[in-house]
């Protein structure tokens, strides 16, 4: 979608890594968990600089509802794509 349909990809895991790097130095890399607020700040900053369509590839929040809460500031997404691996397998997975 990024290559063919001009979407800007927001990979929160990659952004979290960038934030982590910026929190330390080469000699003394930051060890520990990056606060979610810092990641959110970096994502918001990236979005404010982006013109056009944006797509989130996953999230790094502790739970899904925290992610939806974060997205509220941008309004409702146009769509949420959920990739399934077939109905039978879905049910099988729920039983795990």
């Amino acid at each position, binding site marked *: *979608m990024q290559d*063919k*349909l001009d979407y800007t990809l927001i990979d929160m895991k990659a952004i979290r890594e960038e934030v982590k790097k910026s929190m330390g130095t080469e000699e003394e890399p930051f060890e520990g968990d990056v606060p979610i607020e810092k990641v959110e700040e970096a994502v918001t900053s990236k979005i404010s600089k982006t013109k056009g*369509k944006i797509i989130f590839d*996953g*999230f790094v929040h*502790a*739970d*899904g*509802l925290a*992610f*939806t809460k974060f997205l*509220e500031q941008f*309004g*409702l*997404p*146009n*769509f*949420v*794509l*959920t*990739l*399934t*691996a*077939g109905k039978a*397998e879905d049910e099988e*997975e*729920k039983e*795990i």
Partner: protein
Amino acid sequence: MLERCMKRAETSGRSDDNAETIKKRVQNYFDTSYPVVEYYQKFGKVRKIDATGGISEVYKQTKEAILPQTMFILGPKASGKTIIAQNLAERTNMNLLNFNEFIESNGYNDADDETVTMALIAKLSKEVKPRVIIENFPQNAYQAKFFLRNCKNPSNVFSLECSKEVCQERMSEMGQGSPGYVASAILSQKIKAYYQSAKELLPFLKANTSFTTISTDRSIEKTLEEVNDCVEPTVIHIRPGANSNNLRKEITDKLASGHEYMDLDINALIRDENERKTSIGIEMHQMVQSNRIIPAEMIVRMLKKIIYSGQPHMNKFILTSFPDIIEQAKEFEQNCAKIKAIIYSTAESDIVEIKNNNLSLFNIDSLFQKEFRLKTMSEWDFSIFNEKLGNKTDYGVIIGR
């Protein structure tokens, strides 16, 4: 999925491609990601993609899922295309795109069919509205074939038919000052040219799309009713009778879990809009704060976005806690969709006593009862429900020696 990941493990070199970790990852998906899907489901935003196929197939499905739902409206000049398309767009949450104007404003007058159709598809891929009705497209069979091959099938194609006399009458009513006006002789030429190009186009669309021929020789209101019938989903409203709130809940739950009905609980939706501070949520909040009742127009505006979210498979809805009075029911039916029936859950018997049949009392029960749209249910049974809704029962006959 497990099989696919284990196969990937043979070449990926990823240490976490083993059965145990994969199971954990799947469980993690249901624990943390699935609530996101459930949350956005109620806003009609979720598109399910079957990812069991190859990458190109999954990408094709994805592309189709994010493109807006489209409809085509075709017909000779002065057959009523624009007015019907405008009404449909307004009522069912669509953008109206006039293909002739699109060609004109983008300088495609001399472009070939492939170029203009590609440009149209590119425009659709950037469309924000989930539904688009395209007037005067396709103009020939080549454009139609190209569109179907490279985009997605339109959910409906309306071909308007109108006698030459009525077209001419409508043109003269428009008057010479109107921008679309053409003299009678030119109109005749245009009508002839349309039918000429339609000779190959219409049979192709009939064979490959959900095609409906609509006669526009009668009044616009009657035509609109027919068009709306083709597009509108099934909407029912479930109301509890005395001591039958549990039965109402049971009917709603059974229809939602087993028969693909979507429960639109108006109070919960208003709460959501309010919490998310959407523009309509803010408007509603201001109404409540100033001790005013939320107008039906606002609720209908909110519902329209969900009911017409651009997913053709989402076509059965239950209204809960709305409408309550005749004015609300009329607002909903005039500007969104017809309510097929009120299902009245009755705890003890199938009899609903309407103590006063006076419509001026604003109660919707009396209105729906007068129009034979009030149905009662004293216990849950899908076949009875279906019968009460007046759904046709399909049957077959096998004969032989």
